[in-house]
């Protein structure tokens, strides 16, 4: 992998909330075609880090480069347009809109300006067809017309993925996509993400260790805002620091 250029490079990133160092000198990168998993106990700062990358939080210091572009100063929307496709830890959808219209919003953003005032979106095949295609990819085409508020928890997670797909991102930021899915749902999504890495690399925050070990090319372990270990699945499994800090009984 050394000959490839990373898609996403994070260098010496810091973020404090008062006395709490939520992100403490974090560096990591994401290469084409890989799934890089970010694991760590609750409160380790995984979500803070994701929010620094997505643009919700501005970093205190350090740099984030994405496709050779410095992301400093860019807002959430600009970073999304630059090609960061993101799913939320807790589903974040336009709840009154149907599943289809949620995806159409992403297609609309991808296809250019939203300052188009006259043509009705309800009949706009340029929006509807690609959106429907994305729903099919996640297996939600039968629920296209259901308002997001009426979808089940699992369906909402699928919808989040469909929206991220519709953005045709250059990298995915997936914040606990398995959260709250049953075993069958997790297994399905694991298979799906396994393929997805060929479309764009994935920075995956996940608590489901079966999924992480099945999917990840590399793992970074975050504890109290610091990366205490990084490496392949086997290296992380064998790392005594990680066992102690995080995996505990689970890994034995």
């Amino acid at each position, binding site marked *: 992998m050394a000959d490839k250029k990373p898609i996403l490079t994070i260098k010496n990133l810091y973020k404090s909330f008062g006395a709490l160092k939520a992100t403490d000198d974090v560096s990591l990168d994401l290469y084409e075609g890989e799934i890089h998993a970010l694991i760590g106990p609750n409160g380790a700062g995984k979500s803070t880090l994701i929010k620094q990358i997505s643009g919700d939080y501005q970093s205190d210091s350090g740099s984030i480069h994405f496709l050779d572009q410095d992301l400093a100063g860019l*807002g959430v929307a*600009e970073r999304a347009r630059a090609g960061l496709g993101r799913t939320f830890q807790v589903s*974040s959808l*336009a709840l*009154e809109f149907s599943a289809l*219209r949620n995806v*159409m919003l992403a297609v609309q*953003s991808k296809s250019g300006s*939203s300052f188009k005032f006259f043509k009705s*979106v309800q009949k706009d095949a340029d929006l509807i067809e690609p959106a429907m295609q994305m729903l099919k990819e996640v297996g939600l085409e039968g629920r296209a017309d259901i308002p997001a508020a009426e979808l089940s928890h699992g369906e909402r997670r699928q919808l989040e993925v469909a929206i991220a797909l519709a953005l045709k991102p250059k990298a995915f930021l997936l914040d606990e996509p398995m959260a709250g899915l049953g075993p069958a749902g997790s297994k399905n999504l694991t298979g799906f993400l396994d393929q997805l890495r060929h479309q764009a690399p994935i920075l995956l925050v996940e608590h489901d260790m079966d999924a992480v070990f099945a999917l990840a090319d590399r793992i970074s372990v975050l504890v109290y805002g610091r990366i205490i270990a990084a490496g392949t699945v086997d290296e992380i499994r064998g790392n005594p620091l990680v066992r102690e800090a995080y995996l505990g009984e689970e890994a034995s």
Partner: protein
Amino acid sequence: MVNLSRENGFNFLLAAGLLIIPFIAQSMDEPFGITLATRVAVLALAGVGLNLALGSGGLVSFGHAAFFGLGGYVAGILAHHALNYEPIMLSPFEINGTTEMLIIWPLAMLVSGLAALLIGYFSLRTSGVYFIMITLAFAQMIYYFAISWPAYGGEDGLPIYLRNTFPGVNTMDPISFFLIAYVILLLVIALVHVLNNSRFGAALQAARQNDERLSAVGIAPFNIRLVAFVISAMITGLAGALQADLLKFVDPSALSWHMSGEIMIFVILGGVGRLFGPVAGAALFILFESIFGGMTEYWMLFLGAVLLIVVLFARGGLVGFIAGKARHG
């Protein structure tokens, strides 16, 4: 839950009812009825403006009187200069007043829109209660400025001695003026309908539902909201210009927070985010005013009770009560 045809039917009844009333009033030799219907049309238009911000965009502006009043003052000031043959300014070039509605309206919309651009640029960085208070504060600033500026009547207001003119129409004829206001109302409602269904409308409604989601797909909510706020203000400003011509008078009360509250009441009574909600709301308001206003000066007490009932038990307002919950395709 959804009954779109029912809502369309109710909207049609509202539109038809509002159109018929002035003609009935005229045949019964009750010209005051024409004025009432015209007021409904003008106030409904102000509400349609606010409804774009409040209903579609979720922007609870408590300062829309600023735009209503500015529109009114544009009409009043232009007419004042034209009727007194005083240019508005001489250098660097001469600008004269006008009594031509077709010039007054775009200018009223331009001034309201520019004010909204400025107010929105600052206030849209906040949300919730802060947004409400900042829009209120801006509107009050303009209100006190109007009161303290003697050139255009200050507290006493500015009379328009002759109603402004429209090519080919005798605007002094109450029915003709009603029809002008009515046609504008329906055209603007049609425009808002188109906007709501466009890509812009989709982004605006998404910003109301979940701005985090909208940002995450790469659309900055601030820009969308700012444009919506400006369009909304332009519509309310146009209504203000019509109101000035209807009353042949404009005074600072058009800018006061009472007015902002009234416009909001039209929207809430009729149904927030419903296309014809402001028409239903303004009609209800004027109906209450003319029925109970004659009996007691405390008629607002009844209105308040109705508003309370709507807020507590019928969130969709009158339109929602009749046609059921709103739906997005």
